[in-house]
């Protein structure tokens, strides 16, 4: 029993680092511009399908598809931003509806290009399992992308808090006009934030493809997962994203082990609602009114 729980927590931790990759792009855009990009999961999925094409058509390793995925997905992400800037009234709700429409377009575009079939990686290395400390099992891909996930969270945290552009972005998010006076072009920094969100979605998409199965309708649930983690983390907290993601990962994994795998989704939804209603600023966020 102890082994079972230990394995379950371990798997949950690995899943959490991978979830953080999925959530980070959404959390970045949400934290800096207060826009919930409901097409974020579809961007992740798009990168996954690019990896699939690279592997099945050109015989490349999924990771080798990263540059192509970054270019296409970051470009799509920037196009979404440019469309969002055309909204004139009721920005909060209309940006939600606009990205919702874009998500429907992307899902159906993916369906048309890649068909409804389920795809997964064929390169064996990713799916081979390794044993750590005699008892804990994991797939290579889980370890790889858990490490990448933690590194990427660290990199984004460093970028936002230390680099010039990251600080410019935070300046624009806290006071657009004051940032302008300081010589920051808000448009450039916001385009950059969407491009970085696209880059993060690309890494997440490769992780998705090399460890799980992909199908066109998956994007929606990826968006939901990313949003749940963002809410758990609280607005604008990058380390909070990792902790929130790990929390969801472990909670799901333990539910599957101790209860039933069908109830995994229920647990993360309940966790989400409880945090939303009881701790409105998330576990680590700045205090801000949501009600």
């Amino acid at each position, binding site marked *: 029993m102890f082994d079972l729980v230990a394995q379950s927590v371990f798997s949950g931790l690995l899943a959490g680092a991978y979830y953080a990759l999925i959530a980070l792009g959404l959390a970045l855009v949400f934290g800096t511009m207060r826009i*919930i990009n409901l097409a974020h999961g579809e961007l992740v999925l798009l990168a996954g399908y690019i990896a699939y094409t690279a592997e099945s058509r050109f015989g490349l390793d999924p990771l080798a598809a990263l540059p192509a995925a970054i270019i296409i997905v970051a470009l799509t992400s920037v196009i979404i931003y440019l*469309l969002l800037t*055309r*909204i*004139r*009234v*009721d920005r*909060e*709700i*209309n940006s*939600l*509806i*606009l990205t*919702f*429409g*874009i*998500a*429907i*377009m*992307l*899902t*159906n*575009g993916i*369906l*048309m290009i890649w*068909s*409804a079939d389920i795809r997964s990686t064929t390169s064996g290395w990713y799916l081979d399992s390794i044993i750590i400390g005699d008892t804990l099992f994991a797939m290579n891909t889980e370890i790889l992308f858990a490490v990448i996930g933690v590194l990427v969270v660290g990199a984004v945290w460093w970028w936002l808090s230390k680099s010039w552009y990251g600080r410019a972005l935070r300046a624009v998010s806290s006071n657009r006009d004051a940032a302008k006076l300081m010589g920051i072009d808000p448009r450039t920094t916001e385009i950059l934030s969407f491009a970085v969100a696209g880059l993060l979605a690309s890494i997440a998409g490769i992780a998705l493809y090399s460890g799980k199965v992909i199908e066109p309708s998956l994007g*929606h649930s990826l968006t*939901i997962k990313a*949003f*749940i983690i963002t*809410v758990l983390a609280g607005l604008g907290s990058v380390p909070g994203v990792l902790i929130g993601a790990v929390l969801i990962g472990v909670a799901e994994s333990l539910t599957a082990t101790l209860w*039933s795998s*069908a*109830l995994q*989704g*229920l647990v993360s*939804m*309940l966790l*989400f*609602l409880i945090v*939303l*209603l009881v701790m409105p600023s998330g576990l680590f966020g700045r205090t801000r*009114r*949501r*009600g």
Partner: protein
Amino acid sequence: MMKYLSLIIILAGAYLAVPLQFGGNDYVIGIVVSALTIAGIAVAWAMLGNLGGMISFGHSAFFGVGAYGSALLAMNAGLPVFPSILAGGVIAGVVSILTMPTLRLRGPYFALAMLAFAEIFRILAIEMRWLTNGSGGLLSIPRLPTVFGFDFGSRLGGYFVVLTLVLLTVFVYWLIRNRPEGLALRAMHDSEDATLVVGVNATRLKAAVLVVSAFLTGIMGAFNAHYINFLEPDYAFNGSWTTLAIVAAIFGGYKTLWGPVAGALIVYLVDQFVFKAIMPSGHQLILGGLLAAIVIFSPSGLLPWLASRFRKEAGDAAHP
């Protein structure tokens, strides 16, 4: 006067011309019934959006609860179908009380919290096998009855029932909108604080609108259950009941009375008869595009846009 005349023409067309023209064609009538079902959800959704100022992404929860509630009452308790459809709506309305804590949340948080509720209800419908038979679904749900020799269980019969339900939904919306509470609710969007000052209990009114909206959505779900005679969780709680209603309502103009109905008919019929024929897979791409385009170019929807065009042209004609 013009208003009543056009209403009479539309009603005559809906109750007489459509059945006379397409009554024998079950395929066409079937699709029109689906379009009207979505129109009903869209009106109920728009009522919450317009009067309550709240965009919900979780109305499929109420649709599914209404469908299952009515189907189970008719199958297990032997309730006649029409009262059981009403009961399905009531159950959906009661269940919406569970979602009321979300009324404290602002815009996007409310939308996504409702989505979480819809997901929870879907999982519960799969897991509560003793009640819902899980993923196996409910088979042979009683069909709509024959009354005075007319078979409401036929495709055409279903058409008359759903048409009447949609019109009643619009009527209820109209009644609420014209009550003082409706005015108070609409004033609330402009400034919730100001309405609080003049003594409007905003939360209580929002809660009431949520219950009515859930009730009306549940009725559509209940009708659908008895119309197709089969239910499973992934069908009844499918997110596309919400998606299509949102596209329809936003497209037609969710702040107008008839916008959601017009939007549902246009969007769904064009999608099924035109886009689906051109591209069999992925035809909803166009719906997503329409939604994006309407938000960017005419956020208040098609009907207000047409109305302003019409007024402009009439004005131009009057003053050349």
